């Protein structure tokens, strides 16, 4: 099956009913996308499909045909990643790729309330989310400056 993976047209051979998550991790070697629950609750496996956030643990691979898939390896939002590091927005780091993917879709003028609503589908057990808000706000401030 052909898809655009992190900007590159890619042919992947995998059963259409496999989870997109497994195909990304096992066939494409993109292990930055994590599995936390396998039931769409935790958001650790969040990727972008045609520009929209999806939980890759509940997406059958067939749906990715012809789609544009973007993972943490290709997110390219370096300011955001830099600030997740400097603000200690990543502690154990397992939710971080999903958090970064979700945060990457936020507009520059997102308020704290917007950020909280946007991240409501991504669970973090380490930070209490505060450092994540700080990372996103600083990154947004830096890129709009």
């Amino acid at each position, binding site marked *: 099956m052909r898809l655009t993976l992190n900007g590159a047209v890619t042919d992947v051979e995998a059963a259409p009913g496999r989870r997109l998550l497994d195909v990304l991790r096992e066939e494409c070697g993109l292990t930055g996308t994590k599995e936390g629950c396998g039931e769409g609750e935790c958001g650790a496996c969040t990727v972008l499909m045609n520009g929209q956030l999806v939980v890759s643990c509940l997406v059958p691979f067939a749906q990715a045909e012809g789609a544009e898939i973007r993972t943490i*390896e290709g997110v390219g939002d370096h300011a955001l990643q830099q600030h997740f590091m400097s603000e200690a927005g990543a502690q154990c780091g397992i939710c971080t790729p999903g958090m970064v993917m979700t945060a990457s879709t936020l507009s520059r003028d997102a308020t704290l309330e917007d950020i909280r609503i946007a991240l409501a589908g991504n669970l973090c057990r380490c930070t209490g989310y505060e450092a994540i808000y700080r990372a996103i706000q600083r990154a947004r401030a830096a890129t709009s400056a």
Partner: protein
Amino acid sequence: MSVVGTSVARKDGIGKATGAAKYADDLSIPGMLFGRTVRSTIPCGRVKRIRYDFDTTGFTIVDRRDIPLDGRNVVALIEDDQPFLVERDVRHVAEPIVLLAHADREKLLAADVIIEYEVEPPVFDPEASTESLKTLTIDKGHLDAGFAQADVIVEGTYRTGHQEHVYIEPNGVIAVPEDGGIAIFGSIQCPFYVVKALKSLLGPKAHVRVVQTETGGGFGGKEEYPSMIAGHATLLALKAGLPVKIVYDRTEDMIATTKRHPSIVRHRTGVKRDGTLVAMDVEVILDGGAYITLSPVVLSRGCIHAAGPYRCDNVRIRGRAMLTNTPPNGAFRGFGAPQTIFAIEAHMDRIAEALGVDPVTIRERNALVPGDTTATGQRLTADCSALPVLREAVERTDFRRKREALRGTNRGIGLSLFYHGSGFTGSGELRLASKAALELTDHGVRILVSSTEIGQGTRTMHAQIVAETLGIPYEDVDVAQPDTTLVPDSGPTVASRTCMVVGRILQRCAEDLKRRLGDLTPAEYYRAHGPFTIVREHEPPGWIQWDDETYTGDAYATYAWGCDVVEVELDADTCEVRPLHLTAVQEVGKAIHPALARGQIEGGSAQGIGYAIVEHVAMRDGVMANASLTNYTIPTTLDTPAMDIVLLENPYEDGPFGAKGLGELPMDGPAPAVINALRHLGVDLSEIPATPERVMSACGSR
């Protein structure tokens, strides 16, 4: 130059932010099989017969008979009572009986193993259980004499349920046959615990190497249980002669692994009209689950903290951890203290109410100050900060005025005052004799410790301590991945000890090294003299006196102190409790890395908020019935209050740069502060979580 006290970039930050960091499930080894654990479905009884109802071609099958002759079928910990694989008796649901491995995961999952049992009646109520795993008593003064002085006696019973860790990365390890023995790569808090357990499984002479991979959260949940999983993967790998990966899915992780001990705490307190505590009689009952595992130590820490940060001359604390037919409960951030601190702090507000004083006054009157003694008779010194944290929190939140202003609204405000002993209890640190090492590299030094990075910032904070002491740039300090054949045993990564204890050993290593280097930088010395490694052992302060028999003496080298203020909103119609704001004032000795310290407090507070309001394990017939993130809820961004974190510093003289332990402290405060905020609204709760039905029935009775 000063690197300690600044928020330098995390050593592991960029790998985590880019997704490059490798966790156990991200690793794949050629030829690797996948392992599966077949578990008991009954809580109590005996295995009669095991039948393999599938084509076993290509499968590796392990049962108890596959344990090597030199080895023992026990997960070595405190007592040797828990088997790796059921011998015959089943004590809880999800107890491991048979192990399977196969190269194809679908075949592995489809394999049907039928187990027949002889069923016996289980015990689920810890108060009905007749088998105690541990009992202890703390006695101070004369209880009867104390009650004789009391003007008022206040009684209360407080209950807390299980709490699930919900580290976002489930448990997982890979076992690889190596040098006639085994190498383990896994999500592990305490690599040397795994070594100990595997040496018991395989025999003392076996080669065992344990390597910690990037670990997606622990919170105590990866303290003891990885020994079990590593043992299972080892047995499969040795039998198959191939690497075996076992990664639990979320449901298996929730059903099989440890949780926070449920508790029942009863208080009977004598108090004078002026608010002075004169007698405290406390009974602590913990539900230990089916094996001893860590229950004795959890009970111990829980009981030591059960009288709260208060002065009282006459105290009796009686604790018991009881056997029930559920999976063993185990280590979870706070280790017994969140349960007993919930009880005493909810109780203090009841005492205040009985006396007609406010929650601040009752605490000011009784809070420990330097020179006072704790329930175990430990005399506190200048690093006691109960009153400073209380005063700062009260002032910062304008607590008294706000409490008045909110009267009659649907908002309530409550506080909790708490403390947490840093490091192992009593003589524990002496017995551990932890070691740490520093070695020179061609560009600086490398830290060799078995302390693990599980998100809390171990690597970063250790590197800061070493860089500061040596006077070299932070970037010149590397941190070795914990590999038990390369690093010394620094003790487990638990008990808020990684900074205070292991950090202190590293500081001593660095001090020695600095003397040795003279005027040379580490890199210059390395080029001139070649490799050099320095190893030091922990030297607990000489003044610590502790008696394990009588439970008297210096329970901890020092304590960190906290005061949380929580404001909640209660929807009178729907009984929803919404935490609006949390102020946490916490005295941590010295914040080596302020952003990480703050992160610990924010994260611990969120776990505490979850514990207080939404986290409920539905334990039914000995098994967690809501074992999924769909049915066991933890706080999301929309359930977590805005937080105001205040770090106070009051140095502990024997900690690195004055640092105390702070990892567990923030877990202790939120639950009682939430319950006290609800009490401010007239809702009398003595049990968490504060679910709508509990709030509703408490509202109905007001």
